[in-house]
């Protein structure tokens, strides 16, 4: 039996069609082109415009319960919705506010926090970033040392956060800060939220080697954060972070995005026919594309098995780490193949900031960019080494 049949009910088919039609009709063309160029670094304005279009339709924050203004999608609907976003070249949902902080606030936040924070994420007015990693706390996240000292009704922050994606376009940061060093390193960590306009905050952009300004180092020099901006109890931030990271598992395999990328590659091969003078090379390339398609198939089925347990249990287990490992590997292989298919065209580094000219992209110009840029996916959000450690420890009991 194909576990994907669960998405083939009449209701979900109708839903899929509705979402697909809506994206085709409503997604601004300039945004669509940038997404089709495999760009993850969409400018704030693009993200906001699209979010507000979804909001007007009632589909912003799809996974949020209707009580918080979300679309209240079931997990099946979310899965279908995300697939249609990817196939329609629409932006990913906003991971930090919508995907991570929102559901965590619902689980751990005070009534005041829910009231203040959730509506502004829902409306797409406040952008969040995630302050977890530090220069010396990457894979070993719990060794973080960025300090929050309690002084009266404030915490005073000193230190820095590293690899903070989108800090350059965010308004607020949520993050983990060291409030106590006396016990195990997982203890003494507190979850705080702060306004990036607070005095003492400096955001230093870090350019990636392919030229994209996506990540930052954020410095704190005696930054005062009111105690009411703490999520959960003091020193108990680690378990909140773990809860939050478990939410991230939904979609880390990027199956839908890879399906879209592979479809783009096939279109390129068909339209441009770059191997028209080399039939046996064409055969070899088509063979590799077919192999990737099958590997993606295996990943997709595995993802559905892991995310939608037959017994109805919603808890996603540690085996889901495998989805991130394989998902990022396959994605990288697709981009590598696309780059090689472009031949000499792939050498050009011209980026299309306006999203206006897709002609160059269609011919394979700049197809090396995603190959370079997406190396990061195997490093961030728990490197693939850490994901393998998780499987070794939590699944295999080693």
């Amino acid at each position, binding site marked *: 039996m194909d576990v994907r049949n669960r998405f083939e009910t009449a209701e979900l088919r109708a839903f899929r069609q509705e979402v697909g039609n809506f994206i085709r009709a409503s997604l601004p063309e300039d945004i669509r082109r940038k997404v089709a160029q495999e760009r993850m670094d969409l400018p704030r304005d693009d993200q906001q415009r699209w979010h507000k279009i979804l909001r007007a339709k009632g589909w912003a924050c799809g996974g949020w319960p209707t009580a918080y203004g979300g679309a209240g999608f079931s997990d099946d609907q979310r899965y279908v919705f995300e697939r249609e976003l990817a196939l329609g070249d629409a932006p990913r949902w906003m991971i930090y506010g919508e995907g991570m902080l929102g559901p965590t606030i619902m689980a751990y936040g005070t009534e005041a926090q829910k009231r203040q924070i959730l509506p502004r994420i829902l409306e797409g007015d406040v952008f969040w970033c995630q302050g977890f*990693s530090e220069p*010396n706390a*990457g*894979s*070993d996240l719990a*060794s973080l040392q960025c300090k929050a000292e309690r002084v009266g009704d404030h915490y005073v922050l000193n230190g820095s956060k*590293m*690899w903070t994606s989108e800090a350059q376009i965010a308004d607020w940061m949520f993050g983990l800060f060291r409030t106590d060093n006396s016990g195990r390193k997982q203890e003494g960590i507190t979850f705080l939220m702060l306004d990036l306009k607070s005095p003492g905050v400096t955001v230093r952009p*870090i*350019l*990636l*080697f*392919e*030229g994209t300004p996506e*990540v930052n180092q954020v410095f704190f020099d005696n930054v005062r954060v009111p105690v009411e901006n703490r999520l959960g109890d003091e020193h108990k931030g680690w378990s909140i972070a773990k809860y939050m990271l478990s939410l991230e598992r939904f979609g880390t395999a990027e199956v839908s995005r890879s399906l879209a990328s592979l479809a783009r590659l096939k279109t390129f091969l068909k339209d*441009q*026919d*770059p*191997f*028209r*003078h*080399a039939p*046996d*090379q064409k055969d*070899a*390339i088509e063979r590799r594309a077919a192999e990737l398609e099958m590997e993606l198939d295996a990943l997709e089925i595995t993802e559905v098995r892991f995310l939608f347990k037959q017994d109805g249990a919603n808890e996603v287990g540690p085996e889901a780490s495998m989805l991130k490992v394989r998902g990022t590997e396959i994605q*990288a292989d697709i981009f*590598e193949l696309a*780059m*090689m298919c*472009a*031949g*000499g*065209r*792939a*050498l*050009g*580094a*011209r980026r299309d900031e306006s999203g206006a000219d897709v002609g160059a992209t269609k011919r*394979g110009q700049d197809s*090396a*960019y995603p*190959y*370079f840029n997406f*190396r*990061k996916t*195997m*490093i*961030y959000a728990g*490197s*693939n*080494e850490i994901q*393998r450690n998780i499987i070794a420890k939590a699944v295999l009991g080693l």
Partner: protein
Amino acid sequence: MLPTLTDEQRMLKESVERFRQQDYAFEKRKNLLAKLGTEDDPVWMQFAELGWLAATLPEEHGGLGGSNADLALLMEQFGRGLVTSPFVPTIALGGTILRLAANEAQKSAILPGVAEGRIKLALAYLEPPAQPDPTIIATRARRDGDGFVISGDKVAVFYGNVADHLLVSARTSGDIGDRHGISLFLIPISAHGIAINAYSTHDDGWAADLRFDQVRVTADALIGTIDSALGTIEAALDAGTAAICAEAVGAMWCLHDMTLDYIKVRKQFGAAIGSFQAIQHRMVNMYMKCQLAQSMALAGIAALDIAEPAARSRAVSAAKVQVGRAARHVGEEAIQLHGGIAMTDEYAAGHYFKRLTMIRLMFGDEEYHLRRYRSLG
């Protein structure tokens, strides 16, 4: 990389090492790149002064008459230093073509200028769809009086925008895919009718798409025999391919060394990450790839001296396949074992990875060379 060095080669090696460690240190590289390809490019001037441009050119035309081993030595050092320049198109491609096929007048007019750094060359052979087979030529050179009129499109011409003279392949007879009917022309970049669309490449170099619209050249622009230039082009592409394989070996060793240093000092979970067996084995795999790639690059360089073209090309293809695969492995693993730091613009690893990836794409990828290897077997 070379198993043994002569005294001259030892001196040559030391001079390039000094250059890449002092003058072309990674922190200085960005500023130097701003001048890349300009008239007063200080790097190119230094290349000329130190005799590297002359090294492999014939003695009777201002060169030093060096061997392909000298070429390999230079390229490996350029690879280690991430030295970005029009050296490959000017010397390995252009130098080879002129040496093999140009007449005395053409050599005298061009080669001394090349050796002195006054003349840069580029080979315009790729055409849409930018696949590496040099017989995919639709550009036509039509007889016109005692000259020719050339029309057609060339793409991804390395340093085609900064070259002073272009070596252009064009059809004087036959059709796309035919081995016969290809001729080579030496054309000044300033010739009337050449439209240049230049762009930077991912490795901070330059490339250009060139459109030739009724470009008129005189009979003395023809290099070698009419209709019979493919052998010369293939020899030049083999020289260029062997050269960038040697460069890749230098770049891979540099990434290897950087990664090895890093995993010894980067601490996570209370220990240097290099103390973890999972990391150690991957480091060993990188080491083995570097060694094997070095062996094959050496064989590729040695093959340039083989008189029989098919045997030469086959050995060069074998080198390109092995080096290309190793370049992917070593490049990707270097980034992954470093983690985030290697994704940044200010750290050198990502730039080496980009150059290695461009080398994979240049003159045909692994798939293309595997196919060529089989067809020549």
